[in-house]
């Protein structure tokens, strides 16, 4: 029963994506929609990502300092471990989970409200492919913008770590900086970006799916919104494992 339901959901999701990835009717209308979505999904998320990244960077640096305190370990390892934690997991996966909550619920409730107030029917009657018109700009906007948020999160996290090191006086900033720059592999940044591109697609498409097929009243829209966040979070975590396995071939 459960498996059948999951397979049914995946099938419906695929059919929706088939409708989404079509050529837009008018390029000018599409560009305008895309710009709006860039603002709504991307620019409006800068604040929360920046704040969380600064504090998480600071906490990660503090935790590293507390747990790596040993005369056998060089101090610069704190900076090194902070950088690796931010680049490898925090700025891609954890930021993606935060965005799944913020952006995912926003998308599902917006499209769900349009469904129950017949705005999607109105588009269909006009001859507009509603899935393409509403969902494609969101997917492209997030794929373009979320990696930028990842980059910003990496920078803000490192700055947060640097700030706490500087203020708490647990090590010299030079030691921290040595750790940040030692054995730096740009490939890991590429890995973080690639993960975020996949997560961006998952968050927007899964949330749009739940909004698009919302039924009933505002209560149901709320449920769809919750379901969108739960499902996209789970799918993001599953793909995190898959991508890590693929990238590092371990």
């Amino acid at each position, binding site marked *: 029963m459960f498996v059948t339901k999951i397979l049914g959901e995946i099938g419906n999701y695929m059919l929706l994506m088939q409708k989404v990835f079509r050529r837009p009717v*008018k390029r*000018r*209308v599409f560009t305008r929609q895309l710009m709006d979505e860039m603002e709504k999904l991307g620019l409006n998320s800068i604040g929360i990502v920046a704040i969380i990244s600064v504090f998480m960077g600071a906490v990660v640096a503090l935790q590293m300092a507390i747990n790596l305190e040993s005369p056998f370990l060089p101090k610069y390892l704190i900076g090194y471990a902070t950088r690796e934690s931010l680049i490898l997991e925090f700025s891609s996966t954890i930021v993606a989970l935060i965005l799944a909550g913020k952006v995912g619920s926003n998308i599902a409730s917006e499209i769900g409200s349009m469904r129950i107030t017949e*705005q999607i*029917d*109105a588009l*269909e*009657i*006009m*001859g507009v492919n509603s899935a393409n018109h509403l969902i494609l700009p969101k997917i492209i906007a997030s794929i373009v913008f979320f990696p930028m948020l990842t980059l910003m999160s990496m920078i803000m996290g490192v700055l947060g770590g640097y700030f706490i090191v500087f203020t708490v006086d647990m090590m010299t900033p030079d030691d921290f900086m040595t750790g940040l720059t030692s054995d730096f592999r740009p490939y890991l940044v590429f890995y973080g970006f690639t993960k975020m591109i996949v997560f961006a697609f998952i968050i927007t498409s899964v949330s749009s799916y739940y909004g698009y097929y919302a039924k009933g009243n505002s209560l149901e829209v709320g449920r769809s919104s919750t379901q969108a966040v739960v499902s996209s979070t789970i799918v993001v975590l599953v793909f995190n494992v898959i991508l890590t396995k693929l990238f590092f071939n371990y």
Partner: protein
Amino acid sequence: MIKADHVTKQFDGRAVLDDVSAVFETGKTNLIIGQSGSGKTVLLKSLVGLHHIDGGNIYYDDVCYNTLDFNHKKEIRKQVGMIFQGGALFDSFTVEENVKFPLDVFTDLSEEEKLDMVNETLKRVRLENAHKLYPSEISGGMVKRVSIARAIVMKPRYLFCDEPNSGLDPLTSIVIDNLIKEITEEYDITTIINTHDMNSVMEIGDTIVFIYQGKMWWHGTKDDILMSDNEELNNFVFASAMAKRARKNM
């Protein structure tokens, strides 16, 4: 002309439309009436293509609509306007943008030409000085007018109205009814109105189809309706005080 030919529609094995046949004439206001839950909204949505029918055919003039592929249906849908029960205006657009939307998507007119058409249409529905307001900032009657303006801005050949008076006071209802009738005659279009408002029936009903328990139970004109000896129809019609008075005066 729009024709329903032995149309059937089921939901979860339950017949909601059962062998419904009716002809809706051009240049006339064709009303579908019936109690709540009788199937009239399903019939309207089936005629417009929002529901796939399980049996029978729907003809737009001589074209069998339900057998067309997506692209051919799209061409017919460009000639269709629909007024939804709740207006279905796009919340994030102003009144002007709502009315301009079909022009943006389907025409290559310049911005100036489009705005001229929008102004002309809003004037036609007697709605001026509301161009820059959002749907949440205007009254229910104004929402219906904007909805009518959006439906007719492309000069459609077919106009569908799903309970255009719902939620309106009697005076505004009459204004909206008369506006729809004027537009129907002026543009010589096929208008189908779904209603359970007997005031509308007596005011603007050129041809009337009565749906009862998913079946086409009766059809005729507003003059015939008062003389009918159909029991179910009479129960529905004379529940309204206005119709009772009309029969008394005959």
